[in-house]
């Protein structure tokens, strides 16, 4: 997924959002541009209330944006248009099934709407997830409910999976089972996944590209490995009157006496030398975890917005 402010319209993308805006009483999704390439796994990371769910609901036509265009699998999306949803599997953390009915009832219902329903795969998923078809939804645990929903989505073999916090609240075993199933889907290069979470470890595990979102804005978007390569943290010993050299992307993070901690989002191999030659003593130059990168990017994004 890449920000596409300056990119021309591409009809080959799995999904595209351009200039999408949506306002609520206490929240605004602000001019979102996203491009999702086919056959990729895209992680959408943001704190709670950042706008991840709103973006996904707009992509599903469940929420109508005030401005901007949304296209999914080559079709424009709106609440009046249903055909694009034939090839999209959508999971949301707040999605519920009918409590009084069984998993089998829901399987039959979904099968009646999808000619692509794969009954063999559905039975495999029942076994793999340890679900019993005749079990009523009201008797399912949270993890079983998530797995049942994923079964209903995966068995219809969608081209695009939009998963809003699918691992939220799952125990480690259930989470691993869900992620393992998603990893299997990832092996099929024709299928695209958009996956949101506030847990960076889950997203890092399966994503090719990652977008950070905060307070309704995209603050960074890049290939996962490039994120990890380009971000660095430096610890320096420097006198009180030390001036940091003007290096593009270098920002102070914190100061403890003479110890300065700085982060950088455009790392190049000569940065250490330039810091040393500025009068500071470099104590360490560390690669950052995705979670650290996310926190630093959010902090920078908020500072930029305020300034």
């Amino acid at each position: 997924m890449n920000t596409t402010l300056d990119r021309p319209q591409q009809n080959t993308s799995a999904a595209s959002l351009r200039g999408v805006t949506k306002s609520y009483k206490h929240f605004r999704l602000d001019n979102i541009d996203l491009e999702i390439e086919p056959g990729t796994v895209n992680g959408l990371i943001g704190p709670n209330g950042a706008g991840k769910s709103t973006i996904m609901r707009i992509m599903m036509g469940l929420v109508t944006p005030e401005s901007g265009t949304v296209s999914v699998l080559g079709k424009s999306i709106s609440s009046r248009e249903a055909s694009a949803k034939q090839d999209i599997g959508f999971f949301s953390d707040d999605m519920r099934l009918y409590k009084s009915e069984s998993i089998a009832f829901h399987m039959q219902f979904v099968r009646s709407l999808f000619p692509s329903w794969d009954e063999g795969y559905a039975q495999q998923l029942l076994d793999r997830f340890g679900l019993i078809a005749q079990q009523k939804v009201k008797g399912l645990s949270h993890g079983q409910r998530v797995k049942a929903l994923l079964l209903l989505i995966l068995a219809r073999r969608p081209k695009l999976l939009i998963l809003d916090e699918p691992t939220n609240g799952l125990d480690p075993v259930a989470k691993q089972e869900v992620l393992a199933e998603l990893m299997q889907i990832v092996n099929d290069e024709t299928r695209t996944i958009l996956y949101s979470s506030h847990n960076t470890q889950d997203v890092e595990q399966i994503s090719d590209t990652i977008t950070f979102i905060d307070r309704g804005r995209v603050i960074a978007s890049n290939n996962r490995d490039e994120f990890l390569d380009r971000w660095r943290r430096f610890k320096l010993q420097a006198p009180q009157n030390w001036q940091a050299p003007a290096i593009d992307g270098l920002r102070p993070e914190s100061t403890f006496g003479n110890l300065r901690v700085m982060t950088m989002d455009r790392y190049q191999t000569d940065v250490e030398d330039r810091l040393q030659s500025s009068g500071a003593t470099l104590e360490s130059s560390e690669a950052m975890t995705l979670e650290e990168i996310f926190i630093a990017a959010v902090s920078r994004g908020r500072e930029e917005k305020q300034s």
Partner: protein
Amino acid sequence: MNTQAIQILFLKDLFLSRWPMFGYLVGGLLSVMVTCLPGESAGFVGFILMITVTIAAGIHLIGALLLGESIDMTRTFIMSLPISLLDYSLAKISVVLVAFLIPWFGMLACLTIITFVVPEAKPGILPFLVLLFLFMLGGFCLQLFTAVVTESVGWTIVVLVLGNVTLNLFLKMLYEHPAISKLNKSEVLSWPPVVLQIIAIEAIVILIALGLTFMFQIRRKDLV
């Protein structure tokens, strides 16, 4: 418009509401039977039970099929399927209406048969019953409209209460109207102009309420 999807959604909701629908149909028919028992008080009790069952059926079905989808968060699941807002709206409004009409029509049909079959019954009462049942259908349609527009249990109950108060006034008006009260004890079925005028007004209210319900629903921008 996807007629197959509408049909599937309609049948799904009809299946989900099968027990309350069946329960209200049975309860309604039993109420009608009570009106046939000997004694004036049995008739009165049966009449009150009939009205109670109809009102309870309306609010229960609106709550279970419409407001419940929002409260139980099942609408996100339904709207993630290849269903447009038009398909969803047509299926939802139709099924709530049909689920209500089954016990409503069952009771009215049973009453109609009784007025002609039971020797003690007076066929002249039929216009009064039609006016009453159409009034309750109108009240149900207004509750449906309120539920769709506000998605609020509270506001729907407010309309239900107002409907019940108005029903009492309506019954009083019918009893006090010379042309209508005279019919209740008549052995001959007749439809005086005043009855036809009230039926026309009730039909217009029902049609407007249903039309507005559908219009508001399909103009909705955010579905969850």
